[in-house]
């Protein structure tokens, strides 16, 4: 298991594991390859193509609603993240530090909230959005996504805040800082990595969210990426190459997150699980 190996043996094992993981990710890489294959090669099951083409990307970028959907997804995800962290951060601080009336009940409610199934609220929310005239708007999606992200964000952030030693805040208060100043200058900087993790998780959740987006948006210009991908127009036949290209474009932010922001993301995932 964790026996010390000779350097070469360890390198070999490392390489083997990397290879195995690359093989695990083959479904994604196959989709990537397919997005560059010519239609004839696609339909005849050509494993290794003789030539590659950018035609599918061209179709997706020029003729499909996907580019617009990418923008919509980005806006919705950013707004959701901002809102969830804003509301959630305040609530988390209060729950961790302040005498909130009914604190344990609220905490229990928050934890229960993370288990909520989306299907349970989609029909009332549909009627609500219709009554408010919010159908087909970013606002409807942002509100719905935020409501689902909030419990997890509150839980995560409350945990991160609880880790910060209270003495630091008390010291600042003794120095004459008001509560907001304490928040701004003491808590926030220390909480920043945790908040960043929570932000990443929220962004990812909102980007990937499908059920609400499918139900609340009507027109092409308002769709988010998962919906555009699900409703991708086929003629009689399914345009596999175009769908592959669209899938890859839809995967870009998630890929960026796990490559560039890996450490923060992992920290957020672990925190959510380690703390119960």
């Amino acid at each position, binding site marked *: 298991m964790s026996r010390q190996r000779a350097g070469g043996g360890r390198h070999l094992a490392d390489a083997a594991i990397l290879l195995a993981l690359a093989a695990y990710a*083959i*479904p994604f890489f196959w989709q990537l390859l397919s997005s560059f294959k010519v239609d004839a090669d696609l339909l005849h099951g050509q494993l290794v193509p003789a030539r590659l083409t950018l035609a599918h990307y061209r179709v997706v970028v020029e003729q499909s609603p996907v580019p617009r959907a990418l923008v919509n997804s980005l806006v919705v995800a950013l707004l959701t993240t901002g809102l969830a962290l804003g509301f959630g951060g305040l609530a988390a601080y209060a729950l961790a530090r302040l005498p*909130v009336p009914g604190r344990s009940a609220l905490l229990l409610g928050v934890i229960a909230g993370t288990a909520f199934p989306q299907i349970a609220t989609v029909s009332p929310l549909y009627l609500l959005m219709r009554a408010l005239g919010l159908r087909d708007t970013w606002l409807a999606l942002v509100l719905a996504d935020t409501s689902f992200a909030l419990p997890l964000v509150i839980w995560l952030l409350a945990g991160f805040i609880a880790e910060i030693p209270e003495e630091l805040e008390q010291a600042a208060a003794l120095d004459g800082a008001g509560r907001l100043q304490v928040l701004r200058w003491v808590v926030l900087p220390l909480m920043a990595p945790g908040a960043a993790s929570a932000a990443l998780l929220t962004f990812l959740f909102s980007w990937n969210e499908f059920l609400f987006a499918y139900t609340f948006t009507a027109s092409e210009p308002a769709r988010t990426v998962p919906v555009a991908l699900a409703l991708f127009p086929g003629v009689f036949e399914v345009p596999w190459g175009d769908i592959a290209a669209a899938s890859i474009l839809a995967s870009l932010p998630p890929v960026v997150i796990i490559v560039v922001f890996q450490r923060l993301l992992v920290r957020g995932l672990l925190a959510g699980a380690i703390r119960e």
Partner: protein
Amino acid sequence: MNARQRGDRRTALLYVSPALLALGCLTVYPGLWVLWLSLQHRIPIFDVDRFAGLSHYLFLAQDPRFWNAGRVTLVFAAVSVGLELGLGLLTALALRGQRAGRRLALALLLLAWALPAVVTARIFEWLYHPSAGLVNLLLGGRTINWLGDPALALPALILADVWRTMPFVALLCYARLLGIPPELYEAAQVDGAGRTAMFTRITLPLLRRILLIVLLFRTLDALRAFDLMFVLTGGGPAGSTETLTVYAYRSLFQTLQLGFGSAISVVVFALVMLVAWSYLRLLRRQRLGA
């Protein structure tokens, strides 16, 4: 209570109210509303809006499609979670000794988890294509209709779901494994323990808690799953991949039977909450016992 404590309480309420307001309006209120809806006949297309009592629930009790959906949901959850746990644990164990390229390894692993479920659905739809899909190509050109055969569709769906959720399990187990001090193993080795003994006596017990937590998360997610099966198979063929969530959504939005669909949603809700509650009790008891 002195003035400062009162001030603190006010601040607390102030800070908590935006989130509470949002959750109250968008989660709690709809949660109650859906219960109310489930007791109505509500079909907007035909202007139907009247009290139905328990009519929907009574129908569901003897509705073969409902019981089939329940069975599919439970089978899906059980098999999927079981496979994820097993594979995830194995992956974590393999990853534990990784020295070089850890970042790359994690990136490759997390790729499957980070993708939107719709993208995964499209990927596997293409992989499972009868004549041009990679799976059949690798099987030597057989034209197995994975998504069209009622006997094969559910396994195919489960495979896709395990692919995208195993990394989460692996990551959590991996992190926990890293926290186990190597001295424990060295001491055991000195005592003459073999590899299996080290695994069962040291590793597994220390992993138990994280495994239970992962089990909780993953079971809840599997019971609530919607995106993957909706886009990949739509619940077909012949309802062999129709989970309760898909049945609910179809009833709600294919024909706007809002009352009937809400009843099915309430069942999903109750099921998920029941499982969550039992797991949490188990966890609490385990923590007290440990």
